[in-house]
């Protein structure tokens, strides 16, 4: 078997407590099977998911990132996801401007009732990242420039 076929990407998911985390819980209690490549990190709100957390995950070897929270107008704190969305737009733009592969960083809205959507989002993400292969452009930076 070639390494490409055996490559199982490591995905870090940053999710909010109130919608996506509950949604992922529902996926489990509904006994929907989905890819096990995702490590879920729970945050109070998408507004708390600093882009630096994404950078740290990439730096430590994540092959893909999934960020998810409540749909617009559903935020537990009313506007956290609206603020987050603006920052994501700029963050994506800057990553792209600096030449990073945006296909490795995914965003989603998954509510507490969308257990099936969570499974689908994760499965799609895992499939796409698996096709991209291991992330190297970010971890390579780690090794450069130290005497």
């Amino acid at each position, binding site marked *: 078997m070639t390494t490409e076929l055996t490559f199982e990407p490591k995905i870090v998911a940053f999710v909010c407590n109130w919608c996506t985390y509950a949604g992922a819980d529902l996926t489990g209690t509904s006994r929907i099977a989905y890819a096990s490549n995702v490590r879920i990190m729970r945050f109070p709100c998408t507004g708390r998911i600093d882009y630096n957390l994404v950078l740290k995950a990439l730096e430590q070897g994540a092959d893909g990132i999934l960020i998810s929270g409540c749909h617009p107008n559903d935020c537990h704190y009313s506007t956290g996801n609206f603020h987050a969305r603006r920052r994501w737009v700029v963050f994506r733009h800057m990553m792209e401007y600096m*030449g990073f592969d945006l296909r490795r960083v995914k965003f989603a809205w998954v509510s507490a009732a969308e257990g099936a959507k969570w499974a689908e989002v994760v499965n799609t993400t895992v499939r796409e990242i698996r096709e991209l292969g291991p992330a190297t452009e970010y971890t390579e930076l780690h090794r450069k420039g130290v005497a």
Partner: protein
Amino acid sequence: MSALQVQAGELLASGKAEVVIGYGEGTRGRVRPVFVRTRADVSLLVFDGRCTANLTVYLAKPEVGRMGKAAIVATPGAVRSLIQLIAEHQVDPGEVVVLAADDDAVTLLTDPAALEAYAAAHPVTIPPEAKAVTESLARMSAQERRAFWDAELSRCFKCYACRSACALCYCTRCITDMNQPQWVCVAPHALGVMEWHLNRAMHMAGRCVQCGSCTSACPAGIPIGLLAMEASRSVEKEFGAQAGLRCDAPPALSSFAADDRESFIL
């Protein structure tokens, strides 16, 4: 005496300003910041095409603050940065007098409305070199852009002159200097440098007024201002908010619109 010198002299004589922060002749044909406190010294002031550094940066310096009420010789970029500083509640509009200079015209601006009108009448100008790089970047593939920034940033030794020269980089403790937790690697290796500049760009989104001071300050010749400017331009394009035009503008990244673009969200 130039119009600038006359106006500066009047401000000092009338007590409307205790110090005029302006440009003076420096060494090797360069200009440098000067701090004029007496009428006799207004002859030191010059203004011409060499005057590009944004002097607004000195308003945040405690030693300068202690000199009393300041008048500042401002390029259009510096005027925008003052407006942005007012919008961010860093400068009290009543506390600063502006001698807006552009080619040979000098305009005295003393209130927010005048600053805004001046900024509106003097749109952002991008130096040809910066324009050329921006255009070539636009034609590049993602890999080529990665290689471009990798090469440019490999010369960055983290002297922070870009940050020091920026009027909007006024934090007394920059995120890149935080160690509990440490967000950005302190070391000037490829990763630490990239993270530092990405963070600076993110923090300048919707705030960078495209004055170009950071790029001119960089001793390594890196066109570093492109990053902050790009972040600001993306805010302008996506959310319609241009930095440095309105003294009462809400912070672009701490506000939102219900219909902000989200086509990238699954």
